[in-house]
């Protein structure tokens, strides 16, 4: 039962939403709320604590068609002028998909598909691995959005708990392509975690639409680490990424299974990142795409015991489901979910 203060807030929130409280900025980029968002959501159960990052302190709530649940938040300042809210979900919030709503003295924002409340976090579950959606390409006679919509529909009709979408979301990283990608992304009824690929590298656009390149999340006892393998032209050891990879990898040490997901693995990727992820504290699994084909004998990680899982491109109509339980992570056969009206491409891009 909501108390009086919550009821007043909900009425105010309802009025705000009726008056057209837009999600994100008018151009579709992240606004007041940076995370969570539809590419970097949080998965919780009722009563759990989660973190949100906003550009200024705000009143926060979980919102869906059934109502609004105000959030209590503890605030902390972050580098770059951002504010981090440590939020506790109400004990009575029902399972389901929620937008995170925020209102500050100057702005309001409404990140859809940002918070997913599960009844419980299962110990055995299925993941959908989608990669290389290449929204904006004209490589096939059938329209890109139609192909990816079929792939997402296959995810929606599965028993998967969430989807990992590992880069090359767009064909060349243009704003319009990110907007179209989000249009099809938001047809997904599951939590969707995205990372950038080499095709998404138009300056700054990925960050403007989805936020950090490197992050981690827990799903029950399992730890997931998303990261950008960077353009291999560039030595990624100059940037903050190596430090964050190590920091997050260390946080995930207690995980039952530690799972990396990224766009690409290549033996020539930055050596420091390989030491972190495959040598000093090896991930149990690494999921990636990029190559638009099934893994062959030449693929895999030469450094140790990390098992590579490579999935063909969604723009060729394909995806993979992966079973997770106490015995490990097992990739299932590739699923072809969409007709291309042509032969699939076989390019390493």
């Amino acid at each position, binding site marked *: 039962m909501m108390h009086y203060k919550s009821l007043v807030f909900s009425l105010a929130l309802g009025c705000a939403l009726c008056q057209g409280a837009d999600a994100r900025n008018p151009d579709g980029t992240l606004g007041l709320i940076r995370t969570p968002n539809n590419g970097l959501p949080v998965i919780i159960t009722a009563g759990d604590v989660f973190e949100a990052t906003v550009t200024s302190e705000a009143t926060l709530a979980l919102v869906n068609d059934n109502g609004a649940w105000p959030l209590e938040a503890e605030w*902390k300042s*972050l*580098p*770059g*002028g*951002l504010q981090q809210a440590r939020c506790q979900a109400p004990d009575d919030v029902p399972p389901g998909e929620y937008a995170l709503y925020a209102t500050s003295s100057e702005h309001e924002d409404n990140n859809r598909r940002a918070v997913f409340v599960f009844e419980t976090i299962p110990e055995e579950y299925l993941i959908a691995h989608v990669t290389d959606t290449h929204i904006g390409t004209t490589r096939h006679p059938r329209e890109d959005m139609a192909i990816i919509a079929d792939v997402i529909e296959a995810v929606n009709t599965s028993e998967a708990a969430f989807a990992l979408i590992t880069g090359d979301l767009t064909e060349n990283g243009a704003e319009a392509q990110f907007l179209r990608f989000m249009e099809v992304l938001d047809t997904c009824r599951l939590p969707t975690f995205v990372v950038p690929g080499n095709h998404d*590298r138009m*300056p*700054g656009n990925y960050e403007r639409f989805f936020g950090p390149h490197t992050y981690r999340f827990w799903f029950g006892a399992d730890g997931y680490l998303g990261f950008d393998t*960077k*353009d291999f*032209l*560039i*030595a990624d050891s*100059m*940037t*903050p990424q*190596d*430090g*964050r990879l*190590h*920091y997050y990898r*260390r946080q995930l040490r207690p995980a039952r299974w530690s799972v990396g997901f990224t766009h690409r693995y290549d*033996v*020539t990727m930055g*050596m*420091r990142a390989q*030491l972190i992820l495959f*040598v*000093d504290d090896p991930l149990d699994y690494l999921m990636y795409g990029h190559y638009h084909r099934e893994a062959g004998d030449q693929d*895999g*990680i*030469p*450094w*140790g*015991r990390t098992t590579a899982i490579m999935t063909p491109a969604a723009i060729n109509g394909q995806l993979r489901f992966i079973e997770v339980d106490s015995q490990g992570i097992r990739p299932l056969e590739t699923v072809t979910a969409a007709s291309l009206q042509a032969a699939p491409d076989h390019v390493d891009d």
Partner: protein
Amino acid sequence: MSSLLVIALACGIVGQTGTIAYIAGESQESYRLTLIDAATGETTPVGQGDRDAYPRWSPDGTHIAYQSKQPEGTGIRVACPDSGEDKALAHQFSWNYEPRWSPDGRKLAYSSDGDMAPLQAILVYDLDTDTETIWGGTHRGLIRPVWLPTTDLMKALDPDDQAAAEALGLMELSAEAEERGVLLAVGVGGAPPNMAADIYIVTPTLAVPLLPFLMPDSYRYVEWCVEPDNDGRQIAYESNDGGDRELFVLGRRGITNVSNHPAADWNPVWAPDNNWIAFESFRQGRRGIYRVLISTANVFPVAVDAYYDCWAPDWSPDGEHLVFVSDRTGAPQLFIADKEGKTQQQLTKDAFPALAPTWRPDTN
């Protein structure tokens, strides 16, 4: 820490002078080699501005070698800030990475995809003759070369038994090193999934693993970031020997673990006096900058915080200050701290990243 920063900004008590080369740009595609005057904050773009990376000053401080985009791949360029000249080396191969100057400033060594990609080769470019040569003989899988300033350390490796030395090829290695110079590099070897990385001594025709001379089980570990001191009498390197990544120093007293902490320790950078090493560590959670006195292995924090990272330290020529990168204000920016970390000053204040700082040598 933040109050110290404010004090430093208000009073200008850091007061460091000199020129620092670094990489600046909104994105990888626009990264550009840039100079900044540490006293005034005035910046000067120098590089070609197309994926510039890894700047290194020549020993006399007149030129900067750096990695940049070339029509097919990445090449090494040499810029002269005083004249404005910026020259691309004439490479045999498309992909070339991370240049390092020879002690006399007349050669550059770098990794290259070479003739057996993905196994990289070490190439040496003679700036006097504009010729490029593969070093290490037929050995491939060598990366991240760095020049050994003298061959003093190699003499310590020589077995007493001359026959044994000849069998190991040390006589030939020493003779070639004396005549033509010598590099240290990391050699990646072994068969998947049991790959390893060891430190190699590299001359034009030879590549010999270093640590097995001193530590027979060294093949079990993965070494990285080998850095000789400024006189070539000690070598710092990283290894996962001991369970996590530690810094070791190989010197006249043998091999010593100088960082020895359960958290990872990375990227050793020798101070000008060869007594201290600045490095990165996660011992307080986030990546921070520390320094260690080699003789005692006592470690001191320089720039550390629970909520942001500090990395890529480089010493001032007088050894009194460190320049480094931190994301404490959002996008990574350059900061200068005195070596004890008591005063810190933000040097660059741009909306886009500033990375990979390197202090110009003081040759006066």
